[in-house]
């Protein structure tokens, strides 16, 4: 029972103190003398943190792209036939095919009458039955428990154990979420407190996935930037972490450290040594570790391997394993599934204080439950077809095809972009993006500044208008002062990607020429 609510409702006698502090409705006179009322909700009365929220991935450049699409469809003439949205990590929108088995099971769950349809394989049917049995009323339409369907959480725990070579995972530490974003924002909510110099500071990588900066802005937390090392393939340096935290202690209370591995937008895959160092650092500086691992299956470069924070933590022995507080996040939106629209995800929470855990449960219960189809999908991701099962062959084939296509495209992107003078692209070791550095001529920088635009936004806008290609400027993710980048996904089908890369090349050459 919620005692907070009890207190609220019991406080019936609201003190009725002296004069009203509510101002009179403000009447405004417009130019021609007609009275017009000011709104209740204006920029000035609005929650001020909202003003600070920005999300470049769907920001002004995307809005312009959507406008251009509309103009194209209305027959307006453009220097391009279609707008290519290489801004967002949305695999299916770019033509990636879903995994057949997953969709079959979900269709069976949606409309169980199909269980009598002989075109569905037996293993899909038995999975569907198992999922439906754990749903209220045997329907995906019911609410689930706030923490997520029990049997799914258990399957997730087993998956994590297998992935991490046997390191134990307690299903109680698993929370199903609405995409990873939901889990990340919830954890940040818990972490934010204090005022002024004791206000929570959260360390985030630069460049970063702008959900973090947006969430921190909305929550009113302090953003602590640590720079990834572009010269060393976007690696994470402990000395840089140390610098950032030392400086931050002067004006806030650093309490959390966010790592994205494999990285977004940078694509770097952290070495095992690096992860150990980060864990030691977090332990020493007493920071809550947030490990965003949604791209864990997207590892392409030779010599690179995904190491989960959880596994490394436990292999470092009880001194760390029993003390460092860690939340790791996964999602159904990336990897080989690419099912962004299902909003499936989970987080595993290690070493969290029990009382805080209760609060977390309460927080989650307010939003009732994550979408059930997403939970069902997560169940299939952690529990895919096994050797011997009817769907195994096609599953492996599809998964391999998708992942190897991505690996190929990662290599292609790096290669082509590096042939362009003025563009330099680090190897895309993992994830779904390239984040090349671009040289922007002084003249262009000047023009941009005069327009009040970031130079790379100016560059990207021009590219959009001239080629129809929509990218996100590096300023949306953060970058070292005086450097410029853009983020481009590697998701379009290979032939389209080749065209895209060539167009980018041509544009860059033209642009450089124009502003020389």
């Amino acid at each position, binding site marked *: 029972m*919620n005692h907070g609510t009890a207190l609220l*409702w019991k406080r019936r006698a609201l003190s009725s103190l002296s004069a009203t502090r509510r101002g009179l409705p403000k009447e405004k006179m417009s130019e021609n003398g007609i009275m017009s009322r000011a*709104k209740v909700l204006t920029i000035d009365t609005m929650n001020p943190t909202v003003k600070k929220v920005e999300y470049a991935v769907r920001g002004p450049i995307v809005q312009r792209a959507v406008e251009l699409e509309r103009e194209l469809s209305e027959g307006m003439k453009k220097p391009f036939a279609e707008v290519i949205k290489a801004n967002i990590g949305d695999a299916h929108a770019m033509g990636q095919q879903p995994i057949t088995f997953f969709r079959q099971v979900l269709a069976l769950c949606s409309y169980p009458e199909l269980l009598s349809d002989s075109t569905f394989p037996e293993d899909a049917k038995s999975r569907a039955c198992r999922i439906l049995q754990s749903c209220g009323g045997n329907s995906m339409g019911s*609410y689930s428990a706030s923490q997520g369907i029990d049997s799914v959480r258990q399957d997730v725990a087993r998956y994590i154990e297998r992935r991490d070579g046997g390191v134990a995972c307690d299903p109680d530490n698993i929370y199903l979420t*609405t995409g990873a974003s939901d889990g990340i924002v919830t954890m940040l909510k818990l972490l934010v407190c204090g005022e002024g110099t004791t206000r929570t500071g959260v360390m985030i990588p630069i460049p970063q996935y702008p959900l973090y900066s947006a969430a921190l802005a909305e929550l009113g937390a302090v953003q602590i930037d640590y720079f990834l090392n572009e010269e060393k393939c976007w690696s994470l340096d402990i000395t840089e972490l140390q610098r950032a935290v030392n400086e931050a202690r002067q004006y806030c209370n650093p309490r959390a450290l966010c790592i994205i591995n494999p990285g977004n937008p940078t694509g770097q895959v952290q070495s095992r040594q690096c992860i150990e160092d980060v864990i030691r650092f977090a332990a020493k500086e007493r920071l809550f570790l947030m490990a965003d691992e949604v791209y864990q299956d997207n590892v392409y470069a030779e010599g690179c391997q995904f190491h989960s924070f959880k596994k490394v933590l436990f292999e470092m022995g009880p001194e760390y394993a029993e003390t460092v507080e860690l939340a790791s996040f996964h999602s159904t939106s990336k990897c080989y599934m690419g099912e*962004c629209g299902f909003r499936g995800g989970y987080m595993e929470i290690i070493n969290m204080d029990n009382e805080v855990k209760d609060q977390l449960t309460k927080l989650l219960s307010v939003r009732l439950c994550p979408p059930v*189809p997403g939970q069902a999908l997560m169940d299939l991701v952690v529990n895919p077809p096994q050797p011997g099962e009817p769907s195994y062959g096609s599953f492996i084939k599809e998964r391999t095809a998708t992942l190897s296509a991505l690996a190929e495209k990662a290599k292609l992107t790096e290669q082509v972009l590096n042939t362009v003078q003025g563009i330099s692209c680090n190897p895309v070791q993992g994830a779904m993006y390239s984040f090349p550095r671009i040289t922007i001529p002084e003249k262009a920088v000047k023009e941009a500044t005069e327009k009040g635009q970031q130079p790379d936004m100016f560059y990207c806008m021009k590219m959009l208008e001239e080629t129809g290609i929509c990218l996100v400027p590096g300023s949306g993710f953060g970058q070292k002062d005086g450097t410029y980048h853009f983020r481009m996904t590697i998701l379009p089908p290979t032939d389209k990607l080749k065209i895209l890369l060539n167009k980018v090349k041509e544009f860059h050459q033209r642009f450089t020429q124009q502003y020389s």
Partner: protein
Amino acid sequence: VIDVFQGDLHKAGMKPLTFVRQVLAACVYPPLINSSNLPLDARQRTQEELGRCVGGSVGEGNVCGLMTWKKMKMLVVQDPQGGAEKTHRTQLSLLCDNYYFCGFGPWLRTQALLNREASPRTGVLIPVPCHNKTVLSIMQLGAVAVPYYLSEEQGWALQVEELQRALESAKGVCNPVALYIINPGNPAGIYSSQCGDQVIRFAWEKRLFLLVDEVYQDCVYGENCEFVSYKRTLSEMGPPFSGTVELASFHSVSKSFSGEYVCGLRAGYVELVNLDPAVMKYIHTLFSKDSCETVLGQIALDLMMDPPKPGDPSYLLYKQEIEQIRTVLVHNVKRVHEVVNSLPGFSCSPIEGGLFAFPRLHLTPKAIQKAKVTAEMQEDPDTFYCTRLLEEGGVFTGPGWEYGQKEGTYHIRFCIAVPQDVMEELLRRLSSFHMTFMKDFS
């Protein structure tokens, strides 16, 4: 255990709508478009829906919180709630860009309205009784919930004088900026469309932002009762109200039965009327960063607003299934009213809308005292009643204090959207438990 604590129809055993499920299944697994197992209109509809998904897949994430579908605009214009067609239509076409997919929860969380740093603190007027999650959401955002009491004697009617009193009570405590209305109510069933006019006038006079939760708009049972949206009332009132009162109204697939009670899909929408265009820009950003809406949920919403029509192959079955649900609900509502009112120390207003009954327990002071002493943890009498009812009667209900009630009154809340035989069993257990309880604590 009969679980009627939440408004979850499928859990309680109500059957989903065939057409909706067929379309959703085919959207998830498109090869079904060629399957003779599905009726033609379901297959065609699937193609339509997939045609709107970028890449033709429900796995795409482009459709976040932003309403980008042209069809939605058309649907809104054809909205039978349109009322005075001309004015409403103009307003609708202007406002079509102001629809956002979201659940009510996420909307509140990103509520631009609630200025955490304001001093005095922001206040929101909320009805008593009210869904407890709303209160929690408001508190979470650092605002103050200012209660206004619905009148139980008048079947939980909303009275403007009470709104006035509530506003007065907030003086010196907080700065009320919004008025939250549930229409039809939760848990209290009656809806206040008849006084919608008065409420809008009040909001206009007192400069309050209207937040109207209309997720139960399809659940209206009373004879001669008709759901009238606040949006419609507002537009019919004409200027100065129609062009100035700021309104956000919410709908959801979780509670509508003209669509599907798909709580598990977590989909809904909010319509924003008369908001400051400068603010709309920020709201747009807020919705774009945090996509909580599944594509399947949005499709379910579309199916809800544009169901099979007469002549379509699925129409008859669809209509039959809807009628069945409606019949069950109307029947349940009557039975609950009958049975509860026949029991001593128990009374229930006519349930004219919504999915819950909120009957009142009349406990004597002696009974209350005894209950307090017996309760292990100094529980409220209604919590005590509900706990006992669960343990001895096997019926899971919610105690009134969780939703708010006048001091000294006690209620329980339970969902009435269960199959008829389950309702009969529920009422049988409730009656027998209640008689025993009243005897033990007389």
